[in-house]
């Protein structure tokens, strides 16, 4: 077993791949602004539908609900699970910054060290960046969240 493979499949990732926090599309709080996104990786068939809602009552900038439904490899499923844990109750801007930082580490081909202070459990995915073919797997839920929030946001402005 190479150390790269151990790095890729850290225990926390294998556990989240089974736990799948946030799995199963949830009803969103009445009146909240809801956005949904469906993402597909056509090369491997990984798929995710992610639903996110932001508070309607004067706290539009905070996430009130995140849930998802999907199928795929352990990296994509664990990534959705970790994201669900982290995103809830986060400020929207803060969350967007987190997504950007995660993306930057993922695309670094192993050159960027993941900052656990900022990325929390998502830092466990830093090993993925050495496997360019797997970056899409790790990003799937995160990109879906970005899109879902955009959709929810466009409803706020209406």
């Amino acid at each position, binding site marked *: 077993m190479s150390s790269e493979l151990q790095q890729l*499949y850290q225990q926390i990732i294998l556990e989240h791949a*089974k736990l799948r926090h946030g799995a199963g599309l949830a009803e969103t709080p009445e009146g909240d602004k809801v956005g949904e996104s469906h993402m597909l990786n056509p090369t*491997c*068939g990984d798929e995710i539908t992610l639903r996110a809602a932001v508070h309607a009552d004067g706290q539009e900038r905070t996430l009130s609900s995140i849930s998802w439904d999907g199928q795929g490899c*352990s*990296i994509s499923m664990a990534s959705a699970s970790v994201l669900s844990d982290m995103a809830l109750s986060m400020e929207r801007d803060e969350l967007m910054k987190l997504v950007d930082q995660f993306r930057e580490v993922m695309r670094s081909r192993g050159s960027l060290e993941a900052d656990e202070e900022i990325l929390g459990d998502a830092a466990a995915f830093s090993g993925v960046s050495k496997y360019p073919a797997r970056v899409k797997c790790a990003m799937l839920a995160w990109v879906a969240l970005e899109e879902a929030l955009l959709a929810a946001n466009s409803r706020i402005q209406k």
Partner: protein
Amino acid sequence: MPVVSTPTTLKHSVGAIDNTEVLRIRNDFPILNREVNGHPLVYLDSGATSQNPLSVIEAEQEYYEQRNAAVHRGAHSLAVEATDVYEAARETVSGFIGARTNELVWTSNATEAINLITYAFSNATAGRGGEEAEPFVLKQGDEIVVTEMEHHANLIPWQELAFRTGATLTYLPVDDDGALQLEHANTVITPQTKILAFTHASNVLGTINPVETLVTMAREVGAFVVLDACQSVPHLPVDVKALDVDFAVFSGHKMLAPTGIGALYGKAELLNAMPPFLTGGSMITTVTMEHAAYLPSPTRFEAGTQRISQAVALAAAVNYLQETGMDRIHAWEVELGQRLVTGLEQIDGIRVLGPGAGSERIGLAAFDVDGVHAHDVGQFLDDKGIAVRVGHHCAQPLHRRLGLIATTRASTYLYSTTDDVDAFLEAVAGVRPFFGVK
């Protein structure tokens, strides 16, 4: 004629291929000597693309070093030599499948070859090709029949042809084990059927379809037969005349040749009656500002400057295969296929797609690992230097039918050893423990 090194494998060693001969064969394939992730490469992805022997690489290099010129035009010596080796390549490859030289059209790959056929039908339906092309005209109510196990390359072009012409696309279903449900064939193949397109050997299931039975059914209703021979021509003896199909397609890169070259076989009388697909230079007789008349097959379908070095290299690949012997290659791969399936069936949580051990299959096996996604299986194997294919193998409908999204596939070739298979099996046995699946 080009002077290229002959394969170091001896001409038709008597008897069956064994590991000793394979080790000698492997010396001809430079890439098989490399390491991947600190392990000797175990290449089990030949169903996707095969590796190239030195004689093929050298044939392409020799062409560029000595003969490079535009073919079928120009009076200079290089142009004559280039044309000679290009047409000699056609003779070699057409002879390899039992066809005449004017029945083998070069294409980029099998996908383009199938598209060529569909667009010829389409163009005939649009009124091109005159009276001769009438047999290729499709109308509302006509049926195009494929099977549920087809590679996307032998499905989507037919879907598009149906959309363009108003014909209906139907298919022969497979059962829960992936076997073609021939008992339903009589209700699917009807007097309305104009085309029957199916794969010779399945790239997922490893099964060899009953060509003779299907051709007989097609003949009874007067339908054209199109054979996807991508997984058969590289691996077993194929004689298109004996099979009596109307068209057959295959890709060079799956049979020791470079990418960018494939072929369409068609009966001469059909090819000569079909309107062309790609048009332009080199495929014409007389051109005015309003009209053009076209050459007969194969030039009719080879517009523009062609893939000359690739054709030459494909001929070198065919020479290599013939010197080893297709019947012997097939027998060796059947042995490896059985070893794969027998071994996989002994590992907990593995479901092999297609026929089980002891039943006929070519030298490949696709399988599902319970609780572990194919992508993760492939990653785990790659870490040990083992190259396999993961995903739907361009056969989404078949996977859906079998209740799966993605599988892992190991596929062998003449350069695969029993050690390759055993290393793969040992690694697969470690997959579920590594991912903590019980």
